[in-house]
């Protein structure tokens, strides 16, 4: 199986370990075999080990080591935020975060909504069963 996600200048990656866990960063340059120079709109440009990154499918068009303004403009042009939030991976992460931040009242509301949804599904199923019988 060939590789589809490459480490290259402009690749968007997710930090999966450490202080910046959960952040989307852009690989801005490669230091050596194990480390990359990485940048994001809300952090100082710094080095990070590839072991702490998971590459995504998103890639933006930048030159090696752009300055912050150019990087933010390129992120806007590549529409990274929307692409990420509409991708299945991004949506799953958003749902996870939401679930983790629920309070008891929200969980109660969800319980009611789940019961309602299950009731509607069961009604439809009963109707179909009746027609098949």
């Amino acid at each position, binding site marked *: 199986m060939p590789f589809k*996600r490459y480490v290259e200048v402009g690749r968007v990656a997710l930090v999966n370990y450490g202080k910046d866990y959960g952040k989307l960063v852009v690989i801005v340059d490669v230091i050596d075999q194990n480390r990359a120079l990485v940048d994001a709109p809300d952090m100082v440009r*710094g080095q990070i080990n590839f072991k702490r990154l998971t590459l995504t499918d998103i890639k933006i068009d930048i030159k090696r*080591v752009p300055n912050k303004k150019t990087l933010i403009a390129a992120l806007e042009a590549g529409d990274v935020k929307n692409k990420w939030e509409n991708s299945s991976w991004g949506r799953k992460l958003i749902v996870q975060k939401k679930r983790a931040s629920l309070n008891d009242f929200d969980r109660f509301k969800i319980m009611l909504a789940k019961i309602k949804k299950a009731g509607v599904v069961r009604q439809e199923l009963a109707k179909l069963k009746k027609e098949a019988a």
Partner: protein
Amino acid sequence: MSYKFHQFQVVGRGLPTESDEHPKIYRMKLWATNEVRAKSKFWYFLRKLKKVKKSNGQMLAINEIFEKNPTTIKNYGIWLRYQSRTGYHNMYKEYRDTTLNGGIEQMYTEMASRHRVRHHCIQVIKTATIPAKLCKRESTKQFHNSKIKFPLVFKKVRLPTRKLKTTYKASRPNLFV
């Protein structure tokens, strides 16, 4: 990024005597883990170069030197002299890093792993930031490519925090990228 080795600028001179009212002042840039060690190293080197010891000398200044541009990647060339089991040798090594302290730390760990040389047997002669054209080692030159592109071949599955670590897993992890 916390580095083990810090760079210090140490300035000292011999104590003034009746024959020599204004002795020459010497300045050295060296790497040590802390200030105390840096001062000790300074006297060690100065003793080898001039007829002065810590007991008849004075420390004038010791300042830590920080990296000016820690957000840009540079190629560092390090000239060093080290003691092996059979004698002293000189070496030139190249490293790619964002800061000089990082490059020096890479050097110390590499010398320890490749040549079994502990850090007290290594003397840094000179360091320099090398422009890409003058790099000598293939392992640094292979990253001088503005369109560098390579896949990450092996994905190590790791939990986001050490608290969630488990010895056993229900299913085999997927290692493909």
